[in-house]
Structure formats: C-alpha cells, structure tokens
C-alpha cells in the first residue's frame, strides 16, 4: 500500500518532469524565432536627442519656449507652463519626418530618466504631453532629453 508521502513524492516528481519537458519544448520555439526570417519583426527604435537646454540663472532653471532638432527626422519641441504643469508639444517638421513619425509609438525621456513618458504621435506627426511642473522635472528636462520612436515595420 502506498503512503501519502509516496503519493505526494510521485506526484511532485511527475509534475517536475512534465514541467521540465514542457520548458524544453518551449525552448525549441525560441530557437526557431532566432533563425533569420522566422522571428516576429524586431522593432527598430530610433533616438532623437536634444542636448542640455538649460539657461541657468542662479539656482533657477528655465525651459526655452521652443527647440528644433533639424536632424532626420526633423522635429520641433515647444514647452509651455500651464496651470496643470508643463505642456510639451511635439511636431514633425516636413513631409519626410511626418511620414516616419505619424502614428508611431514613442517615448519622451529626460537625461536622468526621471521623466519617462510613453505616447503615440498622431497621424499628422503631433503629440502633446502634460508633465508636472515641479522643479525636479523642469531641471531634469533642462539637462537634456531624447525621444525614442518605433519605426514603421
């Protein structure tokens, strides 16, 4: 006659074996996904950098009204303080930039990564972000930021 411990050991061993075999089977799928042409399309992420914006006046850091990155894709960033916080308006400049940025997923990240805002450009290559207006956020943005966007497949 089997004891409860025997039963439980046998059950545990069987489950362990089954789990281990299933993991090994799942790994075959991962190996396949590594082969050229088999993987789900890997997203291509492009970074648009904005160097330090700070106009240090004593201890107070101010954001400029507007900054343009003329690179490829060209983009304009406007900052405006509002009752709710800092509004950041992004706009693709020119048709090539609009084609690349329109409708794309993106992130707006400050240099020290304390601001990390996921968003999507609208079909016209625009986006509006609302950030809190505390000193740390303004200071962090003033030290520079970048926009990462996912290129169209």
């Amino acid at each position: 006659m089997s004891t409860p411990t025997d039963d439980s050991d046998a059950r545990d061993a069987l489950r362990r074996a089954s789990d281990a075999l299933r993991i090994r089977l799942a790994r075959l799928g991962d190996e396949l996904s590594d082969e050229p042409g088999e993987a789900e399309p890997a997203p291509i992420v492009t970074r648009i950098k904005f160097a330090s914006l700070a106009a240090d006046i004593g201890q107070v850091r101010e954001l400029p009204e507007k900054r343009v990155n003329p690179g490829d894709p060209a983009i304009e960033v406007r900052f405006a303080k509002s009752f709710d916080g800092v509004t950041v308006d992004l706009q693709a400049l020119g048709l090539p930039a609009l084609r690349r940025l329109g409708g794309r997923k993106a992130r707006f990240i400050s240099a020290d990564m304390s601001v990390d805002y996921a968003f999507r450009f609208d079909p016209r290559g625009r986006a509006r972000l609302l950030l809190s207006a505390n000193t740390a956020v303004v200071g962090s943005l003033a030290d520079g930021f970048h926009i990462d966007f996912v290129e169209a497949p």
Partner: protein
Amino acid sequence: MPNPLAMPFAQHIAHLLNKRDDDGLVRINPWRLFLRLEQTLLRGRGGGYVLKLVGLRTMGLNPDRMSDREDGVARWFDAVMERPLEIHSSRDRHKAHDLLEALVRRSPEFGPARLERRPSDSAAAAQGPAQGLYARLAQFEKRAPDPAVGRRGAALRREQGPLMLIIGDAAAPTPETLSVWSALSLIPSVMRPLEGDEALAFSYLMIQLIETADERWNSIRRLGLSPPEWIEDLSINRARDVGILMSAAGPRPDQDALAAAWRRVPVPGFDDLDAFFASDIGRAMCAPVGGGPRFEPLDEAPEPRAPIADKQATKEEMLDAIELFRARGRIDPFDLDLLAAVAEGANLTALWRRPNIRARFDNKAAFVAHTDKVSQALIREVREIEAERALSAEGEVREVT
C-alpha cells in the same frame, strides 16, 4: 491554475534576456524588451497568445483587427506584467525581488550585488556604472504610494528595515511590492549570458512570476468574462468556485442542471442559487436571470496544472516519466521519442537533422507548432495520471477502513 501559455511566454522572456551580441554579452533595454514582448503577444504562437493568454474575445475585441489586438495586449500588460506583487506572509521578499537580484547579478560591470534588509539609514549613494540603475530605482521608490507597500512589506520595513539593493558600497531601498515589469525595467544595460542549469533556473523563476502575475486575469478569462471589467471585484477563489459550479453544471446547462450542480458544489458566500443569480457574478454568468447560462469553457479541457514546482526535474525523472507515458500508451510513440530526445538535451538543430522528423513536417515551423500539441498532450496525460492515482488512493483508504 496557471494558463498553459504562461509558461512558453515566460520562457520567451528568459530567452530574450539571454540573446547575445557579437561580443557574447546581452544588451537589451527595457523599452526594446517591451516592444519585442508586445510583438510576441500580438503575433506569437499563431495568434495563440492574443486569444488564449490575453483572451481577446472575452473583452469583445476582434482578433482580426490589429488595433483591437493592441488594445487587448495593452490591457493584459497593465493588469498582469505591471501588477504589484505583494510579499507572502511566510517570506521576506517576493520572487519579483529575486528576479531583480538575478538580473543585477548578471551585470559584468557592477561586481557582487544582493538584496538584503537593512536599516534605512544605511543607504549609500552609488558611484560608477551602477549610478543609472540606482537613479531608476529611486524613481520607483518615489512613485510607489504607501498602500503599495502591502501589509507584510510594511511590517518587514518596520521590524527589519527596507529591502536594500546593495552593489559594492552603494545601498538603496527597493519597493516592497514590485511588479514583474518593474523588476524587468531595472535591467542592467549589459548582462552576462546564462548557461546550462543557471539558464534553466532563470527560466523557472520567470515562469513562476508570470504564472503568479497572470493568475487573477486567467481565473476570470476562464469563466468567459472580460478580465479588465472584473479584475478589481472578483477574487481568484470566487472565480475558481464559480468555475467549479459551472463545470459541474455542464455545457449550456438549464435551470435544473444548475440546481443539481449547486446541490453538489455550491459557491461559498451565497445562501442559495437564487442569491447567486441575484449577484453581479451570477447575473454575468447566467444572464438573463433564470434563463440559460451563457457559460461555455473557452478551453477544451480544464487547466490541470498546479503552479510550477520550485525544484527542477533531473534527467532521470524526465526519462522515468516518459517510460510511464509509454507504458500507458496514450501518447504517440513518435512524440515520446521526441520527448526522450529533448530530455537528453537535443536542440532544434539536432532534432531537425533526424530523418523521421524531416519526413513528417514540411518545415521547422510546422515541427515547432507540433511541439505545442505535444506540450498540451503532456498536460492532459499528467492530469489523467493524477486523477487515477487519487481514485486508487481513495479505494485503498476505503479498504483499510
């Protein structure tokens, strides 16, 4: 019970976190990892993830529309991957903390790293390569609202101090409740790859985490309800009890079948079937009240597995299990040979060299799709063996008494 697709998805994360660059090191930043995982959920397993892990149709979303897929995947990600996981009452940290520790230890730049409870005044600023990681950690700690600490976490903080991430001389507190994604988003920018048992141990940790994080979502999805609508209000236990009742009532049951099922397995917390019908969950499952319930299990079979074990199987245990399956004769001998080869360590390349495999499948993708079916067959077989053993143990007890 865990979703059967939680395991391959978790294994896929472990795999992505082990993909080497030309110099043999692993480099993946959190956003790229997120985008890869999003693609996997949207398109992977021939749409299996989006249908059976996310459960798109339960949300009334259309799997043929990419925007609906994206919507469903985003909701699953928010509710599962970003779900704060509370520390169990018997532990002083969560497995999400183990994940964070395992990731940080893989950095070739940081040196020895560990998580340890220490008084909060022992915090020390980081210098050098770990600075960026500590800056991100500080943001998490700042963002985490007090209730997110959880009861166990709050008590542990009071008695033993916060769980400090210690790298060299630097130390900073980690949030008491971490989500899987919070831990993954603290990934070092460069990691050493894992090999052999170490890689398997990491896969097990990932699987345990994803199965745990997905448990609530899955318990609702299995009822055919929309998880985002119910996740705040329906506990895992209540969902399980309702599932037991509806399974006992059979597919498309009428009022009599439900009443008979209620006599056998009533849902705790309700005085009677009428009280159940009058509740939100009763109405959702059996609407219109008194009419035919719309419940129909989404999966062909109930999901039988207990959460993945902490301990890994030995090769001997795997081969013993395969011999047991062979003796029972329910699994195709071809599949048993495949399992034996996998237990011996064969990879896809080695398997694809085998003439009997090449003769049976047009390409590797068809072969891999078949391995999913083998995995499902394993689940069914183990469930049946366990049920038979339980019955025979019951018989033995009766004989003795």
